[in-house]
């Protein structure tokens, strides 16, 4: 039985009884944590009791009646105070208009005004320029991080490929795998935002926050003074005055000259004068001559492979990540964390497992050797010459559970073909060579046809493809600007996502209707090319479908600092923008 479930999910899916069983197996926390929680409990209990007592007292307040003369006296006193205030104010205004201030007073006033202006500026800076050192203390006290968004990853924004250092502490240096710290945006509770580098620098964000919001980074231990362990190759190289880094070294044909090293720091005295021999030299592009291929990278010796995601309990996106494949199998990690699985070499260098596997510096056997968990999937069968023996719908025959929704299994020029429920993975095509695969793959790869489904009595729906208005949408004036909003299937309606960027600025994008909720990524992708509401109305008109098939969905743009609450009234307002004349 193939489960493909993470052990954590299995355990966390436990019922209360199993949780009780787990509770009996081991202490839930260390003594320090337990005491801390008990102290918190006592504190909260005291607060609850205090609040209850306060509420109780309010019922015991006795009602007393004031003497009637007090009302008249209080009214007279209030009138006097108001009259005095008005008279005094008028006198002060009169004086200030007539008299010119003395130089000292003028100076003092100017100082005060300057101070006030400076203070106002400071306040403005605090709210607008979060980088300001002066605001840091206040911000730290009042702000909390709502989210950190890696726009480079989410929106596929371009960036230069090089390690970018974003932070360092006493032990480690932290890097992003590209120059895109300006795309990693920290969103604060007050609606402000800044890039991660500034946030880390000012202490408003920490590396833990990056872990919390699944922002990937590299951690490099700071270099120690201990000399790095040398490999045999390195030792030999240094003894003969050759380049010490096998990855950097290449070979060249030396006729009479002795091997040289371009880096003066790396070069040592050498007496080797062998002729017609390949000598490794530093691979500085300006120095490279007729070169042999690079020294095989397999010269590197793996010291350790550590799964930091598992070791440090880092939160990683839950999806299978393919790290390698060979002729027979594909290999996956149980989450998107290959960048956290680090291969450490004996020469002190390191890299992530995906790169190491790709370059052949590590193998799957190495993963086994260092107890790194992974998943093996046999490659899909190619059953090209085999004929179909039978097609079995296991969902129907064995009554397996399926989700209720139409599942598209195939399409041709005229029609789209659907199963009445999500069970294509249970409809298995058996081939004459003993192999089998699910129907969707078989149809996709042309190994099965719809006539095969008919032949083996597998039911499916046929839906003619939407015939758009007789007008060719590509001729629409907005097609060039928003090609992605045309030619959408209206089979399940259209979903229009609307976001507000300022008081009167609204943008929107449209997606095909589906039974599932759209992901944040899908919605945010629309925000890259938002149309105005007027433009969207024109686009929607092309589809010629009714209001009831168009779903207006207000959303907020995570990149925008403009805040608004999406409630029922807001939804009505947005819908009215589309439908009210």
């Amino acid at each position, binding site marked *: 039985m193939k489960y493909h479930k993470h*052990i954590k999910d299995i355990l*966390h899916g436990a*019922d209360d009884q199993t949780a*009780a069983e787990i509770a009996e197996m*081991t202490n839930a926390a260390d003594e320090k944590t337990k005491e801390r929680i008990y102290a918190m*409990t006592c504190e909260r209990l005291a607060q609850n009791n205090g609040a209850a007592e306060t509420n109780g007292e309010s019922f015991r307040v006795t009602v007393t009646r004031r003497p009637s003369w007090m009302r008249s006296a209080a009214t007279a006193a209030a009138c006097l105070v108001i009259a005095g205030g008005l008279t005094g104010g008028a006198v002060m205004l009169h004086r200030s208009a007539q008299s010119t201030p003395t130089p000292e007073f003028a100076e003092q006033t100017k100082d005060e005004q300057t101070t006030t202006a400076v203070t106002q500026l400071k306040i403005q800076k605090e709210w607008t320029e979060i980088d300001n050192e002066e605001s840091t203390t206040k911000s730290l006290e009042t702000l909390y991080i709502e989210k950190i968004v890696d726009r480079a990853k989410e929106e596929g924004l371009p960036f230069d490929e090089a390690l970018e250092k974003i932070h360092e502490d006493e032990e480690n240096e932290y890097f992003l795998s590209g120059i895109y710290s300006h795309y990693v945006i920290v969103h604060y509770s007050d609606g402000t935002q800044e890039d991660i580098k500034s946030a880390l620098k000012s202490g408003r964000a920490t590396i833990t926050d990056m872990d919390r919001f699944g922002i990937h980074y590299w951690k490099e231990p700071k270099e120690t003074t201990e000399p790095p362990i040398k490999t045999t190759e390195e030792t030999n190289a240094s003894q003969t005055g050759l380049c010490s880094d096998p990855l950097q070294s290449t070979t060249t044909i030396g006729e009479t000259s002795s091997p040289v090293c371009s880096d003066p720091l790396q070069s040592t005295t050498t007496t080797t004068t062998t002729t017609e021999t390949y000598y490794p030299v530093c691979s500085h592009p300006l120095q490279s001559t007729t070169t042999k291929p690079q020294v095989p990278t397999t010269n590197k010796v793996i010291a350790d492979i550590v799964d930091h995601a598992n070791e440090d309990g880092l939160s990683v996106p839950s999806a299978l990540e393919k790290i390698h494949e060979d002729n027979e199998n594909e290999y996956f990690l149980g989450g998107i964390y290959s960048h956290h699985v680090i291969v450490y070499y004996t020469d002190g260098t390191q890299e992530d497992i995906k790169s190491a596997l790709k370059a052949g510096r590590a193998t799957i056997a190495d993963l086994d050797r260092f107890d790194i968990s992974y998943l093996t999937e046999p490659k899909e069968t190619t059953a090209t010459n085999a004929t179909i023996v039978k097609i079995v719908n296991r969902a129907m025959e064995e009554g397996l559970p399926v989700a209720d929704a139409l599942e598209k299994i195939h399409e041709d020029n005229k029609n789209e073909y659907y199963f009445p429920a999500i069970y294509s993975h249970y409809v298995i095509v058996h081939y004459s060579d003993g192999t089998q695969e699910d129907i969707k793959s078989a149809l996709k790869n042309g190994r099965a046809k719809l006539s095969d489904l008919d032949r083996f009595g597998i039911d499916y729906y046929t839906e003619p493809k939407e015939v758009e208005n007789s007008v060719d949408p590509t001729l629409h004036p907005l097609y060039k600007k928003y090609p992605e909003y045309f030619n959408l299937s209206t089979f399940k309606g259209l979903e229009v996502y609307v976001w507000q960027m300022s008081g009167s600025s609204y943008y929107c994008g449209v997606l095909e209707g589906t039974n599932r909720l759209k992901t944040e990524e899908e919605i945010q992708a629309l925000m890259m090319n938002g149309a105005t509401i007027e433009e969207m109305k024109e686009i929607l008109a092309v589809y010629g479908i009714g209001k009831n098939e168009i779903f207006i969905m207000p959303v907020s743009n995570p990149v925008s600092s403009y805040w608004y609450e999406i409630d029922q009234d807001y939804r009505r307002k947005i819908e009215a923008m589309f439908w009210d004349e």
Partner: protein
Amino acid sequence: MTDAQLCELIRNSPETGNRALFDQYFNYVYAIVCRILGSCGTPEDVEECVADTFAEVLFRLEGINADSLKAYLGTTAKHKALNACRTLSAQKQRTVPMEFVAELPSEQQVEQAAEDAHLRRMLLDSIKALGEPDSSIVIQKYYYNRKSAEIAEITGLTPAAVRKRCSRAVKRLRQELSEFDLIW
């Protein structure tokens, strides 16, 4: 100590009684909270939720039937954790996993749930069979999401020893449960 005795103790000597109740049910409440909040909250959120649960139950103790104290604690912990999970998910604009929300599974899910329960039973039995401290290490790592250093503090081992024991334990479990092809 039975629940009735605990209630009696809390009535006569609240301070001692509260502590006794906390000690007796701490692991239970923590495990329930961690089950729900473990996937969407931080350890601090779990701690807050556990403290909230005990504070609420102790505050309302007078109205609770002494015989159902454990059940009341469990239910309160579950509801508090679900609320916290919803709040946190709303902050992070995520959704609460359906398995926590849907109390009554649909007919189609029943079979899957039964298969899961069967697998979970086998997994727990295999973990128990590992013996101490390996079973504790596996539970701490995969249920309570603790790091090796934290597990080391609880079990009294060194972090390196925890790592080694954990990888050996996982290897054994993987062999025993190879038919399920679990992801570790």
